[in-house]
């Protein structure tokens, strides 16, 4: 079988980094190839070379035997290569048809948009590949999973036959991820070929025909996903044995540290996004707050940490009413906050690592004497924490913005966990991180729990929620749709709760859930 796409000896250097080191890769016709690797392994660089965003330093790309010379994405699109980005490139206020047409509008009479012709083609494509979508719906009204289908239709509309999916399941519920797997199969059945970038081992085993593992910019091997175990794949990816499950003892819950009572919170557009939420988190336990992104978790956490004033209800932290407290008061009560958007809220990217390590303690001794910053102390402590938390950085003077995502997150974890804390609120603490970093951060969170800290873990990753939590609360449309013991619930049941199914039905039993 001749490969539809072949990469030979692709090398891409950045100053000080060899991002891709003589990578050879071939994609067969009708194949789903999973490109597996940690963050910083060079997956994204390789795909950006393929997509024409970067120019390789060495090596060549051939598409169906013809060399591909790209000066930009347009050349790659012309060669039939399409990419579904992790962050969708859709315009919310336009319809599906308008989004799909964008940049390749069909015209009537030279000036008027021919929406009908485009809508008809979209219907044909939907039917052919099982991508159900209403061409006249507005993007803003569609769930994330359907928006992703629109992205796929966009590529098919442009006649792409080599499709690259960049971490496609990051934003999906488990059910939506299953749907996506079906779509991918029908795409290859229809003659398309797929490269699928991921670091989630389970997905690889479910959908891929073949796996290629990248590590530190090199291809370290391939595997047959049907026969290789997750542990084998993980150790190939990381280069050592990895604990996939979190080792933790039985929780010993103590007094409630965080009590939330009837909390109602509005978002920026004055919409009620947290609608009467009540729960508590006890010392020495991890409460997992599961839910598909955008069900009010963000605003809930903002209200708990003092970043957003709630409309009604009460928040009590270590016995103190903090409903309308400011972030500093909350922090000083012993609350650590690992924010959802680490680059927006958690770090000042232009600052050196050292300053980021004291971003919320800079004013306290020993980092300041009166108003005078004690830079020597800051540097000393920062250097210790960099070592202790294994932050890979050239030095503490390096700007946080030049670190990889995983190391940026470690800076935040180091800063938040090395204070004396009673409550840890961690939102998506491992999003976008590699297996090695995830393992490390998870073990730190469990360690805090075992020291008697209360932990509120907010995550959209079911594996993370199930692996870490002692109890799980599921959030759906601004409400808590059931609180369950982590030990008594299956992934399918959680998936149903996340999709809004009433707990009585969702938890009716494994048979009903399946």
């Amino acid at each position: 079988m001749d490969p539809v796409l072949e990469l030979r000896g692709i090398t891409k250097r950045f100053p000080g980094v060899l991002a891709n080191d003589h990578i050879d890769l071939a994609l067969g016709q009708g194949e789903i190839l999973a490109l597996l690797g940690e963050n910083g392994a060079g997956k994204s660089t390789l795909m950006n070379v393929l997509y024409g965003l970067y120019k390789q330093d060495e090596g060549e790309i051939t598409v169906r035997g013809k060399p591909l010379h790209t000066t930009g994405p347009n050349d790659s699109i012309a060669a039939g290569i399409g990419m579904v980005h992790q962050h969708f490139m859709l315009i919310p206020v336009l319809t599906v048809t308008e989004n799909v047409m964008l940049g390749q509008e069909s015209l009537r009479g030279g000036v008027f948009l021919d929406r009908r012709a485009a809508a008809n083609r979209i219907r044909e494509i939907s039917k052919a590949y099982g991508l159900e979508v209403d061409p006249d719906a507005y993007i803003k009204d569609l769930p994330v999973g359907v928006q992703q289908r629109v992205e796929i239709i966009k590529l098919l509309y442009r006649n792409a036959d080599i499709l690259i999916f960049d971490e496609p399941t990051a934003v999906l519920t488990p059910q939506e991820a299953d749907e996506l797997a079906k779509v991918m199969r029908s795409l290859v059945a229809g003659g398309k070929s797929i490269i699928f970038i991921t670091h989630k081992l389970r997905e690889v085993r479910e959908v891929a025909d073949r796996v290629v593992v990248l590590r530190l910019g090199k291809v370290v091997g391939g595997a047959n996903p049907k026969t290789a175990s997750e542990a084998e794949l993980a150790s190939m990816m990381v280069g050592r044995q990895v604990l996939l499950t979190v080792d933790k003892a039985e929780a010993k819950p103590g007094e409630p540290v965080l009590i939330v009572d009837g909390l109602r919170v509005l978002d920026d557009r004055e919409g009620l996004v947290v609608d009467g939420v009540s729960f508590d988190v006890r010392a020495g336990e991890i409460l997992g707050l599961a839910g598909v992104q955008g069900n009010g978790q963000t605003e809930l956490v903002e209200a708990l940490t003092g970043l957003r004033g709630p409309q009604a209800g009460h928040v009590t932290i270590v016995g103190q009413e903090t409903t309308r407290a400011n972030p500093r008061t909350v922090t000083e009560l012993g609350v650590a906050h690992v924010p959802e958007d680490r680059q927006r809220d958690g770090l000042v990217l232009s600052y050196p690592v050292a300053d980021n390590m004291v971003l919320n303690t800079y004013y306290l001794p020993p980092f300041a004497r009166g108003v005078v910053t004690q830079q020597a102390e800051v540097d000393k402590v920062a250097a210790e924490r960099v070592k202790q938390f294994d932050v890979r950085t050239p030095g503490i003077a390096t700007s946080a913005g030049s670190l990889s995502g995983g190391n940026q997150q470690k800076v935040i974890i180091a800063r938040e966990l090395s204070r004396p804390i009673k409550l840890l609120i961690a939102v998506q603490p491992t999003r976008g991180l590699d297996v090695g970093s995830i393992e490390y951060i998870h073990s730190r969170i469990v360690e805090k729990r075992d020291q008697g800290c209360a932990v509120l873990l907010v995550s959209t990753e079911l594996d993370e929620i199930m692996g870490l939590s002692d109890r799980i609360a599921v959030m759906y449309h601004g409400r808590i749709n059931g609180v369950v013991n982590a030990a008594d619930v299956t992934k399918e049941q959680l998936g149903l709760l996340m999709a809004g199914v009433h707990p009585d039905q969702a938890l009716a039993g494994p048979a009903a859930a399946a």
Partner: protein
Amino acid sequence: MTAQSTPAKAPRPWLALRDDLLIPLLAIVMALIVGSFVIVFTNFGVLDILSGASSANLAGAMWSAIATAYGSMFEGAIGNFGAIATAFASGDSAAIGQALYPISESLATTAPYVLAGLAVAVSFRCGMFNIGVEGQIFLGAIFATYVGYAFTGLPAIVHIPLAVLAGALGGALWAAIPALLKARAGAHEVITTIMLNYVAYRLTDWLLSGPMQRPGSTNPISPLIAQTAELPRLLPEPARFHIGFFIALAVAFGVWWLLFRTTIGFEIRTVGANPDAAQYSGMNVTRNLVLAMCLSGALAGLAGANQVLGMNRTMTGGISGGLGFDAIALALLGKSHPAGVVAASFLFGVLRSGATKMQSVAEIPTDLISIIQALVIAFIAAPAIVRGLFRIRRGGDDARTVFMRGWGR
């Protein structure tokens, strides 16, 4: 082009520093080169030759036009080294004063630039664009003038600081208006500060032709300030070089210390660099915006006070002469760093004070200096041009990210 031979593995801070210094320096060189075209093609001698009216040597005429212009500018800004040496050898203090007059005048011109440039730089650092420095200079000048002439019988040691601080207070109060409007009502500071400039102009007009008008004068001019409020001059007349220059340097150091060595500065810079992270870290974003704006206004007010107490000793409508707008360029040139602002201010001081001599000797209008200033800014704003022309490689990507702090964004 020694830059090219810089070893690739040089320590990163040096590379970044090289970038920070070399680019502005080459930008100045480029601006002078382009400026010389303007000189040549506005020179009557050269134009006569080009139109055939004269048969003199073209190259010679061009060269002499450029040499006269820049030579007189240099002499007017820095001085004549021969004359300085002779004066010092003679030991005559009047002669020394005369020989040092050009450079002292440049430094005297530099002082208000430093203060006004710092004002804009501080606002940039906190993520705001204070275009109202001009108006704040006026208010600072008004306050300083009033304290300068209305309070009499004070010893200089009390009167001078009082008048200087009154200037700072005036600027700070004027800047507090847009700051509070932003904090309370969300009004954008660019709009409000521009508007307040006009209010400041008209307020000055009214004061100088009403309550603050010099008795017996029909011109809009304030009374002379008391001698006890005058910033002492350090050279014999007619040199106006006064201690304001050293005050400006001390203030620049103070601003650097505040911004980079205190928790106050850390908060201001964090709010400027990432307001979301500042809020997450428990900083009061609004309070910092107000504080930075008032600090910015206080610095502008100091510039106004400097002009009244050190240079003019009276207040007129022409007290600022666009200083507040040049200040924006200075902050950009100096990358919002106090040391950079001082260096940029010196450049502007030299150009401005050299321009006068150039006008009288080479008969080139001072507007040429505005052109050169504009060109320097253009070349610095577009470093790619300078890099391309001189084939300078970037100082390592990592180094760039570390040291690139933006203009307070």
